[in-house]
């Protein structure tokens, strides 16, 4: 069916994701604005913000340790590295063993861990609050995510995303079982949590009672903040990419020629667009949940994932 | 005299011994108990004499003599003195009611007879009921110690059970070897003296009966 993906392709896909990340955010913002009958900022606004931040100087909390300056760098690096594991334009196992779903989740977790540590470094209440809440939800999200991955991996017998996608074959519509629907449902529940959006988190607010992720970025400034923002853009698209790789296997599998490449990119863009608009829709049609309601919300996802697995195994 | 008559005599003596033991058990007054045990010892001496004549075992004559002097005369006298010195109240109220004590005694007797009945014929020179009587006497002596309130009662009980053992020894075998016999009696005497000293000591230091002390427990 498909040949292995070369290292060059991997790196290309990685950069592609990084570059595309802010755009997705921009699109989501735009759609939200439209739904709320606003003009809204242009889809390229995130790029402008980043550019501005990287030009600015740094203000740093006097209590922060030397670690603080390093945190954004490491977080960005980890997130982007996770991007390298997502098959974007083509299915098939990578020639280099860089494509394992567990490794991907691990890298994302690393980024999250470092973010939390950085938030605690500055001291003060907001950082701690954000970190505490983030690290409360993460352990609840990750197992469910893991189970969703397993629910497809058990069938495929591998956790390598490329291979998984290849297993699904091209005509993914026919290949779907009940388990896939449930797994996808679980994923839909998880997506807002993983991308830090309503109803779990609210990316637009800095109200200390509501913010999770933003609270951790509060003390970062200038290029550092830029890195953190870029990281969260990348994280978002990577998550979407993971979903699309798990449930909508990549379009044309055969051949690494330009046509196939373009088609693949197109298919990927389409899928991302769909998921992004879903996020926008949810975000503008729900209210943010109280923190201690979130576990129940995630519980829905847990049940779906468990059922999916049960269907696979039984 | 014939083995038959000896056996009957021993049996009768055994019955008498049991009777004296019952007296000791039921004795309301310490003096009575002492007299009873003296009488018991006398019976033992007689038994020894009888056996001596029957078997011609000279050791038994010695034993009879010792028993007569020591257990029938000396030790009761010692006890008597002690009671005097202590001038305790004559009436000794038992730990458990006399009726219950006697009931227990009956049980003991029955049990010992039942036990020796299960043994079947033990081919001894002379047995008859000597064995069950001996067991019964020994246990009843201890029963006296368990139910008697004062130290004196317990000493009396001690003699009684010793008597039981002696009787058994004589009846079942022709008595223990003389040297052992003497050693045993010496021990008994020593023990009694030590006990007597303790009793008097306690009486003199804290005005109480040593058998009544129960501070050490648990």
């Amino acid at each position: 069916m498909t040949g292995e993906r070369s290292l060059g392709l991997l790196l290309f896909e990685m950069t592609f994701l990084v570059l595309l990340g802010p755009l997705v955010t921009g699109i989501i913002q735009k759609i939200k604005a439209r739904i709320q009958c606003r003009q809204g900022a242009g889809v390229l606004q995130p790029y402008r913000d980043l550019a501005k931040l990287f030009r600015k100087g740094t203000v740093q909390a006097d209590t922060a340790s030397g670690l603080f300056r390093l945190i954004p760098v490491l977080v960005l690096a980890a997130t982007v590295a996770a991007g390298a594991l997502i098959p974007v334009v083509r299915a098939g196992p990578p020639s280099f063993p860089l494509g394992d779903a567990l490794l991907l989740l691990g890298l994302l977790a690393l980024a999250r861990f470092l973010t939390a540590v950085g938030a605690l470094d500055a001291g003060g209440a907001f950082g701690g609050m954000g970190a505490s809440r983030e690290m409360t939800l993460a352990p609840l999200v990750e197992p469910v995510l893991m189970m969703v991955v397993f629910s497809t991996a058990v069938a495929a017998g591998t956790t390598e995303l490329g291979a998984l996608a290849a297993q699904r074959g091209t005509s993914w519509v026919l290949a779907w079982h009940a388990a896939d629907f449930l797994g996808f449902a679980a994923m839909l529940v998880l997506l807002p949590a993983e991308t830090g959006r309503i109803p779990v988190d609210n990316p637009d607010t800095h109200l200390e009672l509501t913010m999770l992720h933003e609270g951790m970025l509060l003390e970062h400034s200038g290029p550092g903040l830029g890195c953190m923002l870029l990281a969260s853009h990348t994280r978002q698209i990577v998550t979407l990419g993971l979903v699309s790789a798990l449930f909508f296997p990549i379009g044309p599998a055969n051949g690494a020629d330009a046509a196939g490449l373009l088609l693949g990119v197109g298919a990927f863009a389409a899928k991302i667009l769909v998921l992004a608009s879903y996020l926008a829709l949810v975000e503008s049609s729900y209210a943010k949940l109280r923190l201690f309601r979130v576990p129940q919300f995630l519980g829905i996802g847990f049940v779906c994932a468990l059922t999916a697995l049960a269907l696979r195994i039984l | 005299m014939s083995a038959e008559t000896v056996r009957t005599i021993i049996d009768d003596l055994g019955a008498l011994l049991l009777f004296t033991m019952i007296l000791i058990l039921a004795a309301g007054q310490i003096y009575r108990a002492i007299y009873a045990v003296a009488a018991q010892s006398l019976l033992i001496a007689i038994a020894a004499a009888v056996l001596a004549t029957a078997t011609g075992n000279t050791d038994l004559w010695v034993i009879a003599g010792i028993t007569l002097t020591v257990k029938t005369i000396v030790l009761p006298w010692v006890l008597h003195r002690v009671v005097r010195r202590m001038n305790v109240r004559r009436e000794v109220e038992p730990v458990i009611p006399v009726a219950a004590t006697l009931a227990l005694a009956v049980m003991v007797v029955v049990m010992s007879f039942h036990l020796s009945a299960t043994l079947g014929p033990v081919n001894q020179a002379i047995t008859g009921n000597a064995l069950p009587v001996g067991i019964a006497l020994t246990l009843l002596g201890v029963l006296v110690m368990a139910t008697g309130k004062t130290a004196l009662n317990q000493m009396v009980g001690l003699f009684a059970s010793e008597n039981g053992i002696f009787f058994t020894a004589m009846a079942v075998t022709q008595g223990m070897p003389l040297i052992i016999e003497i050693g045993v009696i010496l021990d008994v005497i020593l023990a009694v003296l030590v006990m007597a000293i303790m009793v008097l000591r306690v009486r003199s230091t804290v005005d109480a009966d040593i058998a009544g002390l129960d501070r050490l427990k648990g």
Partner: protein
Amino acid sequence: MTETLLWVLPLVPTVTALLMLTTRDRRILSAIDVCGSAILLALTLVLAREVAKGGPRALGVLRIDDLGLVFLLLLVVLTLAVSIYTVGWLKQAVAVGNMKAESLRSYFALVHLFVATMVVTVLADNLGVLWIAMEGTTITSAVLIGYHGHQHGLEAAWKYIIVTTIGISFGLFGTVLVSAAAAAHGAVGADAMSWSAIMKIAPMLNPGIVRIGFIFVMVGYGTKAGLAPMHLWLPDAHSQAPTPVSALLSGVLIKCAILGIIRFQTIAAAACGPAFPAEVLLVFGLTSVVVATPFILAQNDLKRLLGYHSVEHVGIVALGLGFGGTIGTYGALLHVVNHGVTKALAFFAAGKAIARYGTRDMRVIRGLLAVAPIGATLLMLAALSLAGVPPFSIFVSELMILRAGIGQGHWVAIAIFLAMVVVIFAGLLHHVGAMVFGEPTATASREPEAWSPLLGMMLLAAIMILLGLTIPASIDGLFRRATEIVVG
């Protein structure tokens, strides 16, 4: 030569006791004390070598075989340790006023008479002599227990003398029955009571009589050995006696009673088959282990704690004998020695602690490690060893007993035994740990530790650890031969 030694041996402590009456000076008395014990030990070692070479020796009513030798060695070693310990202990006791300086000689004399009677008990071949000597130990030790002369001491002494006298009069009754059974098979005169003579004809004896006889002996000497439920006198006596005497009582005396039981066990096993005495021993052993447990857990009096602990360990010995077989019996005999040594050590250490704090109440004794490091460490070691932790000797013997039990498939007994051992371990370590660690009580005296008690304890601790790490060939041989005598 060796035969005469049999008679010399009991004379040594007797003579020592008489010598004691010649002086009142504490130092001289202590000197005589130590010398006498040392001579006793030396002579015993000579005897041991002879026996190891030439087998059992007998002269008249006395006889020494490997079985007796095990107990004899334990006796003399402990006697020496006690003598060494007493030197310093007495100094302190006199200073505090626990002992009256003018009555010291009678104390020493009594101790050595006590030892003499125990020597006879161990050497006795004639079961009657065994009984006489046993009653002798009762009388002498009763006086020693009441030695302090205050009310509690006398109460303990009275309970002790009455209860154990009753007990061993049962023992005498059993002896009479057995000898009667023997007499029926032509054993006349002294032979009818000579253990070695009876053993020759044991298989032919009337099982019914021997059976009843053994039960009487078991209960009788069991009382003296402190087996439950006849054990009640034991904690009283051990807690009231002067510390060296407690050590002797717990270390040797109750073991002598065990020897008496073993002698009759062999006869009973030959006459009624080994199953019967084993059964009886098992029941009494388990009862002792179980009964001792709650009293150990909920105990405030240090010496009573150790007393109840002796009950448990005598129970374990009985279990070992009950499990039987070569391993079980070997383990039981080894346990006799191990427990004797360890318990004496424990009493020594406890005695020093009590003297330091002026109370036996364990709730008051705290932070011993701070005021008396060596003594505290020794107490801790003794406690751990008593609890059956390697590399101390008791672990080895308990292991063997356990092994025998598993080999025989006594699962219930094993389960109960292990459960109790663990619970008791918890209780003991709880008590001792509380005493050793923590901040010392204000009332604790901080005077430096005297050398002689430490020396005595070190001696015992050395044996305890040595026997825990290895069993030398000579000792192993002794135990093997002794085991053969019991198992046959």
